[in-house]
């Protein structure tokens, strides 16, 4: 059999000399704000995407100017925890080195900068480095930022789980010195032949890889949407281990039924001491078994579907040298955040703000960026970014509580009356910067949610939380396929409507209407909200309700029943 041609990215990785490529030369070229296509792929492993302002493409072409290129850098912040001092540095950098004048919290508990001119990239990475932050492997075909429930209430359990998540994040880092050489002026290796990538090998993983750690009953990290998940199991307030999940992922392609979102399978319980063994086993199995020919079928979810659950499980156990134990009973309930003040068992207070679409910026009456900055100047605890793109000011002593609250109100971080549905909602960035977006998301979502809220009010169900998520494309950054109401962009002003996911994130939704506009979406929801108001069972979530009344079939095995 002749050698099968691999996906183009595989050759780029192989040629990149452990992620070096020609990034340095590309950054130094003053004639363009862009870098080469190959380097764009390599740069992702450095946490950075090249983008351009799509609103201005045609206009600039007429102006004989190239597209307005800029870079998006996503930091790697395991578990989403930053010290106040780090936050000040993060804030400084956004003001000095980006043109977006904002910081964007992401659905993976980190922040990203938009609008970084090429000439500022190096200074920006160096600025992060001085604050002991980095963007290594924040994107690319490697394990990315490890998510971890930031719930500070059960602080002892959280502290232990957080340390495990952090350790996992660091253990899974690529070993290449490329990042240090390119951005931090570390002396170059004479030859990269001696450099070894112990976990990844020379061509890294076939596709991106996402990990999350949940602490029940919260499922804010949406653990089943990850390639690899750990659900903390406690006994008498002590962490004993985790239920391991694998094979989740959101991304799919419109119109290609061999691609589909999928929730992870449960594989069983593992002891907390075996976390690294199992993680390596899952990652290396994916490294060796994953599809390197068709990039659209390269995520772990397809590997498990294609090789079979049992084969995959046996291989993981073989590589880990440990067997799975039967999964323990855990109850996951809410994927939202706990807003307002919450007191932890250590008597410290924690304040969670709703940040609409995760966008931290200053606007008249809502000086979010300045507010967080001013708080960071006086706050001694930390800042925690949540999986719902919100922010927690964690570890406030009783004595400081009033002062922090007064500042939060002064800058408009607190004070809005929000419906519980809006508090559970998330949207991705999309236009104008995301090259994948087919429709608006962040710029349109707040206004769309106001209309959804009005419909809920009309039917008297405002107090019932419904998980609504929107993305500009089917790659799924805001995990739309795990939303009770999911909207996925198809074309400007047009979305596919998905319904029927469970409230707690244990069942996917399914498409009910294709390529429709706002009026049709709202008409559809108006009818369903009316029925939900009058026909629902006690404690029945909207997602469960639409499945029960037959509006949409439950998705049980996504490979077979997500489409059709």
């Amino acid at each position, binding site marked *: 059999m002749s050698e099968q041609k691999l996906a183009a990215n595989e050759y780029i990785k192989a040629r990149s000399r452990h992620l070096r490529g020609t990034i340095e030369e590309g950054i130094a070229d*003053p*004639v*363009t*704000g862009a870098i080469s296509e190959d380097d764009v792929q390599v740069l992702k492993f450095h946490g950075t995407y090249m983008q351009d302002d799509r609103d*201005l493409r045609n*206009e*600039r*072409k*007429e*102006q*004989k*100017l*190239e597209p*307005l290129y800029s870079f998006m850098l996503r930091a790697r912040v395991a578990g989403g925890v930053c010290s106040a001092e780090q936050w000040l540095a993060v804030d400084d950098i956004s003001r000095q080195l980006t043109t977006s004048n904002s910081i964007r919290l992401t659905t993976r508990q980190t922040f990203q900068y938009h609008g970084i*001119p090429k*000439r500022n990239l190096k200074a920006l990475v160096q600025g992060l480095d001085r604050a002991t932050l980095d963007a290594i492997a924040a994107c690319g075909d490697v394990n990315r930022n490890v998510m971890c429930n930031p719930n500070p209430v059960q602080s002892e359990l959280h502290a232990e789980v957080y340390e495990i998540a952090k350790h996992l994040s660091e253990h899974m880092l690529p070993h290449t010195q490329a990042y240090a050489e390119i951005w931090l002026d570390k002396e170059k290796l004479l030859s990269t032949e001696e450099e070894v990538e112990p976990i990844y090998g020379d061509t890294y993983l076939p596709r991106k890889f996402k990990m999350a750690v949940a602490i029940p009953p919260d499922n804010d990290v949406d653990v089943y949407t990850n390639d690899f998940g750990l659900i903390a199991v406690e006994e008498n307030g002590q962490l004993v281990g985790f239920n391991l999940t694998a094979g989740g992922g959101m991304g799919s392609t419109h119109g290609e039924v061999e691609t589909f979102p999928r929730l992870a399978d449960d594989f069983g319980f593992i002891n907390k001491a075996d976390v690294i063994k199992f993680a390596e086993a899952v990652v290396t199995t994916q490294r060796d078994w994953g599809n390197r020919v068709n990039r659209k079928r390269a995520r772990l979810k397809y590997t498990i579907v294609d090789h079979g659950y049992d084969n995959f499980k046996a291989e993981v156990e073989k590589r880990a040298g440990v067997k799975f134990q039967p999964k323990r009973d855990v109850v996951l309930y809410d994927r939202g955040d706990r807003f307002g003040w919450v007191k932890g068992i250590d008597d410290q207070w924690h304040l969670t703000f709703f940040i609409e679409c995760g966008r931290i910026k200053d606007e008249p009456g809502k000086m979010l960026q300045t507010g967080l900055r001013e708080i960071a100047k006086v706050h001694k605890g930390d800042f925690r970014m949540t999986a719902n793109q919100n922010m927690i000011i964690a570890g406030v002593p009783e004595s400081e509580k009033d002062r922090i609250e007064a500042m939060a109100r002064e800058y408009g971080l607190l004070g809005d009356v929000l419906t519980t549905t809006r508090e559970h909602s998330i949207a991705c960035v999309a236009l104008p910067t995301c090259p994948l977006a087919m429709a608006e998301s962040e710029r349109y979502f707040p206004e769309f949610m106001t209309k959804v809220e009005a419909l809920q009010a009309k039917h008297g169900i405002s107090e019932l939380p419904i998980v609504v998520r929107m993305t500009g494309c089917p790659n799924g950054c805001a995990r739309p396929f795990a939303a009770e109401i999911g909207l996925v962009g198809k074309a400007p002003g047009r979305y596919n409507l998905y319904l029927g996911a469970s409230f707690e994130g244990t069942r996917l939704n399914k498409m009910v209407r294709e390529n429709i506009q706002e009026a049709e979406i709202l008409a559809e929801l108006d009818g369903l909200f009316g029925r939900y108001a009058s026909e629902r069972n006690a404690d029945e979530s909207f997602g469960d309700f639409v499945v029960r009344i037959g509006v949409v079939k439950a998705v049980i095995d996504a490979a077979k029943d997500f489409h059709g």
Partner: protein
Amino acid sequence: MSLNDLSSLASPLSAQQVEALKQLSAQLTPVQLAWVSGYLAATANATPTAVAAVETNSKLTILYGSQTGNSRGVATELANQAKAAGLAVNLVSMGDYNSRNLKQETLLAVVVSTQGEGEAPDDAIELHKFLASKRAPKLDGVRYAVLSLGDSSYEFFCQTGKEFDERLAKLGAEPLLPRVDCDLDYQQASETWQSEVIAAAKPLLVQSSSASAASPSVPFAETTSQYSKQQPYTAEIMVSQKLTSRDSVKDTRHVEIDLGDSGITYQPGDALGVYFSNDDVLVDSLLSAWQLDGATSVTVGKDSVSLKQALLEQKELTQLYPGLVKFWAEQSQAKELLAIVEDKTQTREFVRSHQVADLQQLYPLSKIEAQTLVDALRPLTPRLYSIASAQSEVDSEVHLTVGLVADERNGEVRYGGASRFLSYAEEGAAVKVYVEPNKHFRLPENPQTPVIMIGPGTGVAPFRAFMQQRASQDDAGQNWLFFGNPHFEQDFLYQTEWQQYLKSGVLSKISLAFSRDQQEKIYVQHRIKQQGAEVWQWLQQGAHLYLCGDADRMAKDVQQALIEVVAEYGEMDQTAASDWLEQLRAAGRFQKDVY
């Protein structure tokens, strides 16, 4: 045009000659025609040589030193009129004139402008120096006339003209008539001077007049086309496209003009003269401030037109001149303005930074006669733009790079007359244009000679023309562009074109200076110094150096940077480096188009 279309009215031939020619040509095959035409051309070429030999001492030599084309224009007009009057004429730029011929001249007419603080224009520098040097010959028996152009708001008004006058007299030449110094509104004075020169020259050159009259009187055209500053071509604006991005503080436009079947030709390096109309809104607001009716009939020159028409099409509203400020001071009796006109420096500064609308706003005139006003205003003069295209690429189009002048003063935006007209022109708008050749800004004759082009801001325009020209030549030499502007993302004029030229190899190297993209300001002169070793290396390899753009600061800073590069890498002191550059200029290898 074919011979059959030839008429005696449009040719130097008589009706009988035309008829005979038509009959003969009708009998010839194309090959025979071509063969005959060669003989005719050779015969025609032989004649003037013979005549010239006889006439060496009996012609009027007109020398001009011109920076912006005004002196050349006056000199050309004089040449045409002298020819029409039957005089033998030799019209030549001082830059091209061989100074050894001076002592053989009979009659010399000099038209020269003065730059900045009393400096000679580029093409006059050498001759100007030569006349004051020990090598200058005795000029006994030579008669001369000088017309100097200048700006009376400058301290050294018409300095270069005065010096030519002094130096010629000192060498023994005798004035034909007293020197005439002209201010910005030179048209009338120069016309009078032209007639006086011709009247005085005629008796002196009388012997040659019969010979000259016999030779066909082909006018000294600035181009081969029939269109000129006096007779501009009405062209069509096809595109006025903003080049700077929406976030730029600058508004720079790319303007494409269709020359249709005018037959107008130009060379990379030439400028386009553009007549414009004043802003309708501006004219209306002035009329209302003056409480004058736009329909009032006024006399402009010999014509009677409406006041509004005069203000729109014929009078300068966006550039002041000292005479007008003085007039305004007297009319308004405003103390502040009266004090300003007492002081030349203040007047110059005022003229530079104000327009008629500012005068009206600051020192309102209300009861003024329409005709008095019109007489006080200067005639509208065309503006010159360096051409940004080459005909090898754009055929009958001509492209310009126009920086919109828009200054906010006292809460009002004051636009530059021509730049506003071109920037906001609708597709299809008519514009009167002519080509102003610039022989002193030309690509090297040898296409393989490397060139270094320094053109920040709109100074990049002629280099786009250069690149278009060189792109059409397969064997073109190396090209290096220095460009600068405030911001990379906003102000990189023609970015995508330079990227293409780099990719195709037409452009070998580009050095960019975006002054506001970092804390310290970086300009092209900094890049020149940073790349000094290579600049020196290119110059050693025979590269030609070109500089285009702002004369006030950029050109001086670049000149200094070049001197430093030459001093450092050529291992000489500043004076020697400065001389070295001057030699480069004299050899035609360092050419400037600064404004």
